[in-house]
């Protein structure tokens, strides 16, 4: 059984080809809120699902041009169906929504498909997986986890090191690795002349998937 996820814009037909997949268990669509044309498309898809007896769920995307926000919503929603076979139709919606969906699918290893605009022929994109988490050391993961619990995902380096009980030299090595990978930045602490603060990049939570 397959859960079909899809971004949806103005064209309801963009989602329908994915429902022809054998054993579709449910359809979850991500569609912008408060756009009458999108609402009309959502209604049509919902009607189609009711007739075909496929459970339908719609997730409202309030900020369809905010990549981080959209990706977080997609990731959180997909997490709820973890362990189930999934496929993501990226045809509809804004390109930002499609890009967000693609990134989440790369990180989760979920296959994607696209219905060609004119013919609605489905082009299945191969599984494209980029596993950032597995490339981190255990210590690196500890630093990341700690930062994600902090306000603004930012903390004094000394505070992080002490909280994780790491030696200065060990901490420096792991912090540098995270910095080299572009996952954190280290800046001078504005509140102290000698201290530094380490800040996670805004998309760190998205990139580092939980096991």
């Amino acid at each position: 059984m397959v859960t079909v996820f899809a971004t949806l814009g103005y064209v309801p037909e963009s989602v329908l080809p994915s429902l022809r997949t054998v054993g579709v268990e449910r359809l979850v669509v991500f569609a912008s809120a408060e756009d009458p044309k999108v609402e009309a498309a959502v209604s049509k898809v919902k009607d189609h699902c009711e007739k075909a007896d496929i459970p339908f769920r719609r997730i409202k995307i309030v900020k369809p041009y905010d990549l981080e926000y959209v990706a977080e919503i997609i990731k959180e929603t997909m997490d709820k169906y973890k362990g189930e076979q999934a496929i993501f139709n990226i045809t509809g919606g804004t390109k930002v929504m499609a890009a967000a969906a693609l990134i989440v699918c790369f990180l989760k290893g979920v296959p994607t498909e696209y219905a060609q605009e004119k013919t609605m022929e489905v082009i299945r994109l191969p599984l494209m997986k980029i596993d950032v988490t597995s490339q981190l050391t255990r210590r690196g993961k500890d630093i990341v986890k700690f930062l994600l619990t902090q306000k603004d995902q930012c903390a004094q380096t000394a505070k992080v090191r002490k909280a994780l009980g790491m030696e200065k030299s060990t901490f420096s090595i792991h912090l540098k690795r995270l910095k080299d990978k572009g996952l954190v930045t280290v800046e001078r602490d504005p509140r102290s002349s000698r201290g530094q603060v380490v800040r996670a990049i805004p998309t760190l939570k998205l990139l580092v998937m939980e096991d």
Partner: protein
Amino acid sequence: MASIRNILVSTYGRAMRKLNVARKHLPHDRLVLVCDSGDADLPTIKQNTLERGGEFIHVEVDPYDFEKCLSTCYKTLEDLKPLTLEAPLPGSLKVNISCGPKTLVGAMLFAAMNAGVEVYHCDVESATGKELVIKLPTVRDFEIHRRFSSDDWSVIEGMSGPREVRVLSKRTGFKDQRLERVLSKLEREGLLEQTMKGNTVWAQPTAIGRFYAGLAPQINERKVNSD
């Protein structure tokens, strides 16, 4: 010829407005458009770029052929990377994915993430007309050649088509357990699928697997040079 410092690579497909946002906000001396050769806007974009004193290159691709899009995009980025390093001052290589069908966009995004190149989505918000320049998450140090071990690459290299696992074992010289470990990893990464035909186990590369197999010789060369 003056050295090229900043290069903008963009997917394209009848979306001049979006491309113009990218051109305005992502400074460049060379514009590389990856798209169908039949696009009617190409001559205008070329002329406009040359008038501004920039260079223009068109990389032709069938935007609906995902596999070809992926290898073309990756090769384009890898070929361009050294140019920004050769300049007297460090330059930049940026990718815009706001134009063209989503098959091409998906291929370019994946290629850029594998090549460790910055990706942007430049758009115009339909309700407000506001220009948007969105930087997508970039992860450095996760480039293809770092993601797989020498053992992995030895197996990937010979995977342009389906192979009997027994034949792979013979070619690589790996014992069963070692080969099984590598094949399981490659299967998890979506590079191949293992199937049984009669009593024989076959390893069948996926489209991504074939893409990586095509890159294996140059990756191996890079690994040897960096060792």
